[in-house]
């Protein structure tokens, strides 16, 4: 090799490799086209020593996004449970004795029970049934410091394991048509829609409120009438008593009372 300028002694060649016995080449050591969704970095460290030693490639599920989605589902469901507690019967550990405005409302109980039943039930996955319990998601029975009764609790280890080992089960459980979340959506839509449980209940309450307002107006009118009638009586009685008192005093002066002759009478007769 000369010391002046460098000269090419051999041209660069495509990387050659076999995947499960099938030969392939690549102009780059970063191979993205051989396996869809998998990038092979053919570095010296990756291919092993001596070059050409077979390497084992393990492809695992990316469970992070599924885990995030499931966690947010649980968080949202728990927000709903907390809201039940605010408007209905307080189901937190620090439960106050006084319930919310809807504590004895059958509508809230129906919604609560129906949604809880959906969350507690399983979804068909082939011949078997899978439930949230299989993913390490369980119902909080007794209220704890952080979770109200009836809320969902995630065991992250079990969830991660289920996502790895049973992706089809998870897919069935959260199927966009028959899954738990889809059932909840269908159920909620029926409550919230026109003619739904909430709308009907609202219209009944509004009718009641209107009736109460009418009754209040009637009561106010009645009160005014009552007061004016009594006032008229009181005025008449006061006038009568004052006038009679004046008349009596005048007659006593004129003719004298039981014991004395009237001043005017005495004056007139003398």
């Amino acid at each position: 090799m000369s010391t002046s300028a460098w000269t090419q002694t051999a041209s660069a060649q495509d990387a050659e490799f076999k995947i499960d016995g099938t030969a392939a080449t690549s102009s780059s050591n970063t191979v993205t086209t051989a396996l869809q969704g998998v990038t092979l970095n053919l570095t010296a460290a990756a291919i092993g020593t001596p070059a050409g030693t077979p390497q084992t490639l393990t492809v695992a599920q990316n469970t992070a996004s599924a885990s995030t989605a499931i966690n947010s589902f649980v968080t949202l469901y728990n927000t709903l449970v907390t809201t039940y507690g605010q408007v209905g019967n307080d189901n937190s550990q620090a439960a106050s004795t006084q319930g919310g405005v809807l504590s004895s409302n059958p509508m809230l109980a129906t919604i609560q029970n129906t949604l809880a039943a959906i969350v507690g039930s399983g979804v068909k996955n082939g011949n078997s049934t899978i439930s949230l319990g299989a993913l390490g998601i369980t119902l909080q029975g007794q209220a704890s410091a952080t979770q109200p009764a009836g809320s969902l609790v995630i065991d992250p280890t079990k969830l991660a394991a289920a996502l790895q080992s049973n992706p089809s089960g998870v897919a069935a459980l959260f199927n966009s048509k028959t899954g738990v979340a889809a059932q909840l959506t269908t159920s909620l839509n029926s409550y919230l829609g026109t003619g739904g449980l909430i709308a009907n209940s609202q219209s009944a309450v509004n009718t009641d409120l209107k009736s109460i307002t009418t009754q209040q107006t009637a009561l106010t009118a009645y009160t005014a009438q009552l007061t004016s009638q009594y006032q008229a009586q009181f005025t008449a009685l006061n006038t009568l008593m004052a006038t009679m008192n004046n008349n009596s005093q005048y007659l006593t002066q004129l003719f004298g009372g039981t014991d004395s002759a009237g001043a005017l009478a005495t004056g007139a007769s003398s």
Partner: protein
Amino acid sequence: MEQNSLIDRLLELTLAIQHAAAMADWQEAARLTEERTPLFMELTPEQDATAMEVINRIQAIDSAIAADAKTTQSELQVEYSSAMKKVQAASKYHQAAKF
């Protein structure tokens, strides 16, 4: 007005007041009383025994009516305050129903 017919008119009005009071028509009784007052002013101090008897009768009727009016007034006051308490209770019920 001649004294005898004045006294007749005073008795007539007094009996009318008595009747109105008996019917608990206190507004009419008060009106008649006010109508009667100026007639008393026309009475002269010299009256014969018959006239004095009538005047004494008028005074006796008046004091009975006044006593009745006083009783009625306190009874009505009790009634009125009880009625207003009931109205307030009903009103509170309405307010509670709105929650």
